Each structure stands twice: as structure tokens, then as C-alpha cells.
């Protein structure tokens, strides 16, 4: 009785709504609240202008991480999901196992005028599960080392091109942090030491530099991998212990410490590039640069993830062909206009954009783009990915370890026990 009544009311509102709009509206969710939120909003408004009478994106930016993915999951289960959303490639195996994502069929790709050949293999592989594609890649966004040229210059850590030198190797890097501190910085480096989620990227990179793996043939931390994780944690916690890295620093504080000149360096995602560019443009920032992570261990390696576009499964609802076409148009347009997205620091996934002269000259992207050769991604398993189960377990132990509350060896032990329970 209730149900009928409500359905009737809903139907009538829906009818009213669809007759009121002549053009197709696309409900869009993203989590791009950081440095790149503004760039994406610009792209969306450009898109809307380009498609003035045909398609309009209605965008919502939700809190990054667990809150975003929880909302996606529940709203997909009750048929309230958006038409399109940004999604981390690392989380696609998990999402596919939960049945949250719709396949982007070969026909869809053809309609969009995009294909496998347009993307780097690693990214194409990341969006592919059991031979099917579940997303359209937008970018790769590794982490990089930001540095304050004034301080590093004073500390004698720059070469004549203004690129940092002498940072490779754990000993050298620690010494460099000391020199930066001696040159007037309060901290050698601003680490996001209060946020285990964030530190996952740095720690996984440092494992990669030792050829470490989190999962080998379906087993967590097999062989000597625990030792490699411990090495990574030891290096980072040593910086804090020696007073070189800011302790218990949350994300915005880390950015503020770096941009206010209190910290000489910062390891952060390329997505903070716009924060720097914008502050610099306002005359509120020193000379700065960004380079590939230094090689602390054996060889260069940087963790990276990809932003992709995905279409959520909407339980009990199927999109009209018109709506589906509109969504495809959005994805295709965004990829083809991702040169502007690159000004947010990201490396566009779409090959033709990367091939343009404009992109090749773009700074600071050009400086750190060689790192693409050394990128590593999350293991392809439903247990990995942003805000996934492994991510969750590991981050729990990172904060105490990086701030000296817990011994690295002890943390590795606990991580092993917890992962063993999965």
C-alpha cells in the first residue's frame, strides 16, 4: 500500500522531471577535492559550454577515500548511483567483484573513438578484468618530491639547472635533510605522517625500490618481503625520530608546512602542482620544483595510481540509450581535452595528448615525467586499491610506526598477522 503510493508519487515526479528538461543531464560524482578539484570544475564547465543544448554535467565532489567509495557502494545497491564517476584504477578489481561497475564494451570504445592503442599497457591492464574493460583511463598520478629551491640552494643541494643532487641512497638523503634543516628550514621534509592512507604510497614506492612485493602468487608478504617493508618503514621513521620529518602531520598541514617554507621538501602527489602554481602566480610562493622520488634503495621506483571514469551499476535501473550516449561523450571528451588536466600535474593517459608539443614542454611535468618508466601499481586483487581491505590494514600501523610509537619490525609482524586473517 505504502509502496504503491510512493511509487506512484515518484513516477509522477520523474515524468515531470523528464518533460521539463529537453537536454540530457549527466549526474557526475568525483572525489577531486585536492589541488585538482578546480581544474576539473573548469573542464566540466567547458564541457557544458561545448554541449550547451545537448548535455549538461551536474557535478558533485564528495570526500575522498572511504566516504566516497562507501557512498558509491550503497547508492549503487539501492539504485541511486550517479551516471558517471571518477574511480581509482587500483580499486577496479574490488569493484568488479562487488558488481558495482558496468562494463565499457568494445562498442562503447568504438563510439567514443578510443582504443587500447591510445593508452599505456600498464593502465589498460589496470582497467581490464577477465578480458573486459570497466573504465576509461584519464591519467596516471604518481607521487613526486617537491622541493624549495631557495633552501636547497642554500644547503648546496642543487646543480646548476636547479635540480636537486646528492639525494640518492638512504644515508645521503638523510644527510641532505640535515643540511636543509641547517640552511634554515624547520623540517627537512614535510611528511603526511598522521595519515596512514596517504603514506601507503610512499611506503609501497620504497618497497618497489627493493623489488619488494605485497602479494606474490596470492600470498601476502611472502619470502623476504617483510624485511623489505620493514626497511621502508625504518627509513621513514628514522627521519621523524631524528627530527628531520614533521611528526603527526595531516594532509593540509603538510602542504601548509611546505608552502610556508617551514619544510624544505615534501613527498606528495602530482595533484598538488596546481596549489603551487596558483600560489606562485599570486606571488605567495618561493621558487619551487618537483622531481621523481630519489632512489633510497636499489633502483628508482614510484607508486602510481590512475584516475579513471566508470559507470556504476544502478540496481533496478537501466540508462536510456540517450543517457548512455551522453555519458560516453563525456568520457571521450574529457580524455581528448586532458591537456588541461595535465596542468593539474597529472600525466594524461590518452596517448595523443601526451604526444603534443605543448604537453612535452609543460612544467614541472616534463621534469618528472621520466619516472613513468619506473612506475609500479597495486597488485591486481580485490583486496587492494584505495580504501580497500589491505590498504585499510596497512595504514592502521603506519601512523604509530612513522611517529616512533611502534617499532618497524613489530608493525610488520602485526600487518602480517592481520593480512593473514583475510
Amino acid at each position, binding site marked *: 500500500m505504502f509502496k504503491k503510493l510512493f511509487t506512484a508519487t515518484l513516477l509522477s515526479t520523474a515524468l515531470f522531471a523528464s518533460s521539463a528538461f529537453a537536454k540530457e543531464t549527466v549526474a557526475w560524482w568525483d572525489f577531486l577535492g585536492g589541488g585538482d578539484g578546480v581544474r576539473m570544475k573548469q573542464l566540466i564547465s567547458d564541457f557544458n559550454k561545448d554541449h550547451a543544448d545537448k548535455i549538461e554535467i551536474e557535478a558533485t565532489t564528495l570526500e575522498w*577515500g*572511504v566516504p566516497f567509495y562507501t557512498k558509491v*557502494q550503497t547508492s549503487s*545497491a539501492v539504485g541511486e548511483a550517479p551516471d558517471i564517476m571518477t574511480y581509482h584504477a587500483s580499486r577496479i578489481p574490488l569493484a568488479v567483484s562487488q558488481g558495482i561497475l558496468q562494463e565499457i564494451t568494445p562498442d562503447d570504445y568504438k563510439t567514443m573513438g578510443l582504443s587500447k592503442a591510445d593508452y599505456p599497457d600498464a593502465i589498460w591492464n589496470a582497467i581490464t578484468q577477465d578480458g573486459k574493460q570497466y573504465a576509461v583511463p584519464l591519467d596516471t598520478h604518481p607521487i613526486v618530491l617537491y622541493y624549495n629551491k631557495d633552501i636547497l640552494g642554500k644547503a648546496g643541494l642543487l646543480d646548476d639547472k636547479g635540480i636537486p643532487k646528492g639525494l640518492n641512497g638512504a644515508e645521503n638523503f638523510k644527510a641532505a635533510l640535515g643540511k636543509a634543516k641547517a640552511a634554515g628550514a624547520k623540517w627537512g621534509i614535510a611528511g603526511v605522517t*598522521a595519515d596512514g592512507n596517504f603514506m601507503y604510497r610512499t611506503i609501497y614506492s620504497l618497497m618497489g625500490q627493493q623489488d619488494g612485493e605485497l602479494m606474490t602468487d596470492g600470498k601476502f608478504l611472502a619470502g623476504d618481503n617483510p624485511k623489505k617493508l620493514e626497511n621502508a618503514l625504518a627509513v621513514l621513521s628514522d627521519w621523524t625520530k631524528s627530527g628531520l620529518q614533521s611528526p603527526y602531520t*595531516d594532509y593540509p598541514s603538510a602542504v601548509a608546512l611546505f608552502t610556508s617554507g617551514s619544510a624544505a621538501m615534501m613527498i606528495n602527489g602530482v595533484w598538488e602542482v596546481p596549489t603551487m602554481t596558483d600560489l606562485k602566480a599570486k606571488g605567495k610562493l618561493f621558487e619551487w620544483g618537483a622531481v621523481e622520488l630519489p632512489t633510497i634503495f636499489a633502483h628508482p621506483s614510484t607508486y602510481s595510481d590512475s584516475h579513471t571514469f566508470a559507470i556504476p551499476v544502478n540496481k533496478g535501473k537501466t540508462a536510456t540509450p540517450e543517457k548512455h550516449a551522453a555519458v560516453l561523450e563525456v568520457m571521450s571528451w574529457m580524455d581528448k581535452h586532458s591537456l588541461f588536466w595535465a596542468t593539474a600535474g597529472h600525466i594524461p593517459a590518452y596517448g595523443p595528448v601526451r604526444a603534443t608539443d605543448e604537453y612535452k614542454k609543460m612544467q614541472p611535468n616534463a621534469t618528472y615525467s621520466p619516472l613513468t618508466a619506473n612506475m609500479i601499481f597495486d597488485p591486481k586483487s580485490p583486496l587492494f586499491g584505495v580504501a580497500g581491505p589491505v590498504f585499510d590494514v596497512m595504514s592502521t600501523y603506519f601512523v604509530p610506526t612513522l*611517529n616512533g610509537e611502534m617499532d618497524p619490525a613489530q608493525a610488520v609482524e602485526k600487518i602480517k598477522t592481520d593480512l593473514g586473517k583475510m
Partner: protein
Amino acid sequence: MIRNLAKENLIALVFVAPFVALFGLLFIYPTIAMFITSFTDAPLIGAGKWVGIANYVRLASDAKFGLALWNTGYFVLLSVIPGTFVALLVAVGVSRLSGWTQAIVLALFFLPYILPVSVVYRLWDWVLNFQFGLAMHVLDALWIPRVPVFKTITWFMPAVAVVTIWWTAGFSFLLFLAGLRAIPPEIYEAAALDNSNGWTTFRKITWPLLWPVTALVLTIQLILQLKIFDQVYLFSVGGRPNDTMVMVQYIYVKALVNNQGGQAAAIAVSLFVIVIAISVFQFLLLRLAGGDDSK
């Protein structure tokens, strides 16, 4: 009998019907449904298979459940008694004031209570910010090392408890104030004639007469704080939610994040039973204690 029974019944029905309809749909039905769901393996949305007491058996060996239970209890301990004490102190202090001073001071103490929890969260997240927070500057001035309150397990619950007391003490404070005002001035006059000093007066007169209010405040606070979710959830985002999880939050995670409705319902039933058992127990206990004190 002047009353026409049949007619009165009909009228009564009209009066109670709207409430009873809502009460049945939004209270009785969900409560029964919760119990039923807890014996199934249902996801968040949709039906599940009957699994008997499997969900409860699982809880017994679930370390996270134990932790959530412990954290909830710990939070109650940190917030209820200290919060009541703070409210009482403030009420005694404020009751000594008069006129506009009292009005202003009262408003200053009460204002936090009427704010939404997310506003309280934003304020304190900023005040306690490890790099730029006001409180950290105070610690610096006192030569105490800075404390990353919401990022360490040691400080998380105490800090959330302090914030909660700051936020909710206004409620208890008003009750105490009303209680103090209800004490007849003649009693104090008599005490003044006996040359009784302030502390003795408080101990011998104010406190015993105020006991019923104190018992009430304790009961209300206890029931309220067992249901803690909002503050703990908000402050734990980006921190260590697995370590600082409380009961309602665990229900939320199980149901909405892990999509395990049946297991979540089993946790909900546990909390349900705990809250009712504790409130009944406390009610009896306080009545006994209260009876002894006031007579």
C-alpha cells in the same frame, strides 16, 4: 457514569492514531525486523538465508567487536561522570551570579550544546590541529610537548570525551541550575544562622537535595553516550578508524561499507540489549542510592 465509553474510545482512537501509526512503522516494525535480520546472512538490501545464531557466534570471536565494545565503554567512562561533574561545578558557579552577568555567562556555557556536531567537529579539529592549533600554542607556552590528539590511540578517546563534554555539558548544566533554583532559600537562611560555611552548606544541604537531579543527569548521559557515533566517526576520518571504532560505528561499517546486513544487525541487537540492561540496572541502582541519601 456520565462518560459515553464507545464514543470516548472512538475519540481516543482519533487522537492516538497518527502517533501510533508512526510508532508502529518507524519503531516497532524496525525493531522486530532488526532481530529477524540478525539471524540471517542478508546483505544491506534484500533478504538472506536463515543462519540461526551464526552471526552471534561469530561476534564472540571477533576482535573488532570486542574492541568496539571496549572503546564504547571507555568513552562512556570518560564522558559521563566527568561531564556530570563539570556541569554541576558550572551550575553552582553560575547560580551565584545574578542579573545580566548570569544571563551572559549562562549563554556562554550553553551555546555549544545547540550547535550541530559537524560544527563542533570542525572547531575542535582546528583548535587541536597539531601544527597550527590554538591548543598546541597553549601547550608550547606551558613547555609541554605537543600532542597529536586524534592520531594516537592514547589520546583519541580522552580528546573526543573532552570535546563531547564541552558540547553537551550545557544540557546537564541547565538541569542542575533548575535543581539549584528549586532549593528553598529558607534552608540556606537557616544554615547561615548556624554559621555554616560555604563548603559545609554545599555538602550538607545542596548536594543531598540535588541528588535526584544528579541521578537523572547521570542516567540521561549514560544512555546518550552509549550510542556515540557522530563525533568518533568524524574525528577518525583520516586517522585510525579501526582502532578507535565504537559500537554504532561498527554497525555502520558492517552494514554500509562491508554490505553485511545480518552481521550488522547482530551487533545492533547486542548494543540494544546492553543499553536496555544498563539503563534498567542504573535506574534501580540510583533509586536505591537516592532513597538512602534523601531520607
